[in-house]
């Protein structure tokens, strides 16, 4: 059997690439804390993935916990792995 693709429609999605001053998930500045915390600093740390994207730890953990199957980086959709430098 031979399959010919007659028509292929791609749908592009547009996305704001958050600059490095804000967390892409909660949109709060990195020098502040995530919306669950009161004080920035050691209690609300930033974490990096191996893909080099950065989020508040609380924000990325909440996202990963809400995902049943794939644990993906919200920015690049690569598998999320904490980068423990």
């Amino acid at each position, binding site marked *: 059997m031979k399959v010919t693709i007659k028509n292929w429609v791609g749908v592009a999605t547009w996305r*704001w690439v958050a600059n490095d001053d804000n967390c892409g998930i909660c949109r709060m500045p990195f020098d502040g804390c995530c919306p669950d915390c009161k004080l920035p600093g050691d209690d609300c740390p930033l974490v990096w993935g191996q893909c080099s994207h950065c989020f508040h730890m609380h924000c990325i953990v909440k*996202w990963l916990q809400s995902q049943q199957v794939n644990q993906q980086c*919200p920015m690049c959709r690569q598998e999320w792995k904490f980068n423990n430098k």
Partner: protein
Amino acid sequence: MSTPARRRLMRDFKRLQEDPPTGVSGAPTDNNIMIWNAVIFGPHDTPFEDGTFKLTIEFTEEYPNKPPTVRFVSHMFHPNVYADGGICLDILQNRWSPTYDVSAILTSIQSLLSDPNPNSPANSMAAQLYKENRREYEKRVKACVEQSFID
């Protein structure tokens, strides 16, 4: 009461006002920031041109970890819009990312109007006409555009 979802929605609203994307607009309803009204203007050079299509967006406290429910209130004739106004769009389902905001959602729906995906039809009649009888498709869409002035 301020929750993470509500604070995120306040930031979404601020960004929508400060940096409004062309052809879409949206704002929370007066007494509930979890429910928004939005309008998408039909993109130029498509049969949707000149239409003003109204939508509602309903968020849960799990936002932005879960996508909101988006629905057209205006009557639509589009391959990926269900009869009840629900929208079949991957980023509102399994391709959702918590980095999206209201601006990104509305802009994606706007581009869906320009580029329907007839291979995952929510309205099989619209999908079939889009593929096989473009003239009739455009006629039906134009009727929606006219209807959208009255709604």
